[in-house]
């Protein structure tokens, strides 16, 4: 406690907080310089390759999905659906950077209504989800399927052009968790198929990938933070594993009790707090 006596008295009297009018400006300047000088090109490159790889597989799986839909193979399409989407969900920080493509591929009916659009303008995965799970048909969804594949390919092509910044990675990791907290944990993402746990898992994997890429840089600043994040990822992953059969098949969201979703939600929030501190690598 002895070492803190001085600092405490500073806090208590507010000197440290108020007495730095001049220094503050300098700090801001230095911070800007810092942002430019933190060398992360290797990490940014690595993340971009990850995203491209995910997008490659997203296109491949979407193609299989589209073929099944057009062939009227309902069960097969249902099987591919959640797995194909995981590639998209893992790299959502990148996909999201295309404001037009993301909704074309991933819009929910509720999103359209919020934006004042009509059902006629609805495209993408969730529209076919509705056909498969609610109408139990693929008929009439052929054009939607074709358009989905076209959009997926366009997304893949445009990923090449994305300027991956530290902010995209750092903020993206937290955003992935926020996605889980706001729409997956409530079952609102996959309202017809109830395959929310696949998206949940993929979002966590996407955030974990960013953490793994940045891990050594974080360790240089705060080894404890690395340990804490590893433990929290482990915690959420082992919770999710309870709902998986060992072959990548997750239980329906409808089978989760309030107690289940509460436990999962708390684990996500406990991961989100330390995750929001990854930005220390920019100091």
């Amino acid at each position, binding site marked *: 406690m002895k070492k*803190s006596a001085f600092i405490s008295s500073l806090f*208590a009297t507010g000197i440290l907080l108020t007495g730095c009018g001049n220094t503050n400006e300098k700090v801001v300047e230095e911070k800007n310089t810092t942002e430019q*000088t933190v060398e992360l090109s290797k990490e940014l490159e690595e993340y971009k390759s990850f995203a491209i790889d995910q997008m490659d597989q997203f296109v491949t799986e979407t193609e299989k999905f589209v073929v099944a839909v057009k062939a009227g193979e309902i069960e097969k399409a249902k099987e591919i659906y959640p797995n194909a989407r995981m590639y998209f969900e893992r790299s959502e920080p990148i996909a999201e950077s295309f404001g037009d493509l993301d909704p074309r591929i991933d819009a929910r009916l509720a999103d359209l209504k919020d934006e004042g659009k009509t059902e006629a303008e609805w495209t993408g995965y969730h529209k076919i989800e509705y056909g498969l799970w609610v109408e139990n048909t693929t008929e009439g969804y052929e054009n939607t399927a074709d358009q989905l594949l076209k959009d997926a390919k366009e997304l893949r092509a445009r990923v090449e052009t994305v300027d991956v910044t530290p902010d995209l990675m750092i903020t993206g990791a937290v955003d992935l968790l926020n996605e889980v907290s706001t729409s997956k944990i409530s079952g609102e993402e996959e309202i017809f198929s109830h395959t929310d746990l696949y998206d949940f898992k993929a979002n966590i994997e996407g955030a974990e990938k960013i953490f793994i890429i940045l891990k050594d840089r974080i360790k240089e*600043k*705060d080894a*404890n933070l690395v340990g804490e994040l590893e433990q929290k990822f482990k915690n959420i992953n082992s919770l999710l594993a309870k709902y998986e059969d060992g072959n990548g098949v997750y239980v329906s969201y409808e089978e989760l009790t309030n107690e289940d979703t509460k436990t999962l939600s708390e684990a996500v929030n406990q991961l989100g707090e330390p995750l*929001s501190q990854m*930005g*220390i690598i920019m100091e």
Partner: protein
Amino acid sequence: MNTKQSDNLLKNKMNRRQMLKLTGAGTAGVLIGATGFGSVANSFGYSIVDDNMTATEKVPFYGSHQSGIVTNVQKHIYFASLNVIVTSKEELKDLFEMWTPLAVRMMNGEEIAEPTTNSYVAAQDTGEAVGLSASNLTITFGVGPTLFEKSKLGLGHLKPTELEALPHFPKDQLDESYSSGDLCIQACADDPQVAFHAVRNLIRSASGKVILKWTQAGFNSIPVEKNKKQTPRNLFAFKDGTGNPNVNDTKEMNDVVWVQSNESVPWMTGGTYLVARRIQMHLETWDRTALGEQEATFGRHRDSGAPIGKTGEFEDMELARKDSSGNPIIPTTSHVHLAKLVDDRILRRSFSYSSGMDPKTGVFDAGLLFISFQKHPKQFINIQNSLGRIDKLNEYITHRGSATFACFPGIQKGSFVGESLFKA
């Protein structure tokens, strides 16, 4: 975190800006080290923050008793009951050590940590209290009976025998989602956002260590007449707290509220027991009840707060008074009459609440977050048992939540919340 690390942290925290200047950010970053929450916590956890008595609307944190008990009642409360998920006594102790300086800072009207200059990280303080005064914020900590049942924490032998879940009372309709808890944080302030901010930041800083069990916000409106604060009214419009013991009378407080040495386990000396009851008040049925019947239910006049048949709020009840036909003037089934039958006294510090509506019935979910402090929970239990089945008020209220907590004694500068328990 080992001592060396925390040592470095503190040193570097202090010199952070100079460091940046002197060495360039790359190396400084290494030295600055942790800004993660656990780490912020640790870096402050080992520091001592003093009460800043020059802050406006400031209640002292340090003292022989915790704040928020005999403190003049504030206008707002945010009460949180928590369950702990840490699995060792050491981690729990660290949590309270970490919380202590954060509580002092917030009671000084300060943020929990100095603002960050790194725009890539989430800010440590959530910020909604910036620009607001300390607003007479008090933060009161307690531990519930279930904490001592967690064998991994190894605290079982320190449990005071009187710290138990309250017995079932007639007409209780308890809902587990408003009951019990391993720990409690009672934040009271004259500003609702300041009270909420306090709990929010304590919970956030303890991410991964505690989870919310239940929470309740509440309010009191305190009329002022000739510069003197009057007794607040509950949502039934009756004054609540008239019969309270005098918080400025040390002897009375020692008799009623503060555990004296040898009255409980040693670590509770100077502490007190908090009883919390979430009592739904059926406003719709109450509002259509005739005024005379309402007054007979409480045993007091509504507007003046005086005992029935009298004019002054603080006049003696004189329960024995009879009307011309020989019936008691204060009905024997009235709330006040029954409460006065027992000798036990408690310090009530309740707040009204209004939490939306009951989706099943479409009525207000509103009522009283009843809170009382007493040196032994039996004081409350005896009174509640006296009210029993016959209290006329029962018709208009339903007890939905219940919890008891042992509130630690006061904290001395250099010590931390709950030290007497953890060093016992």
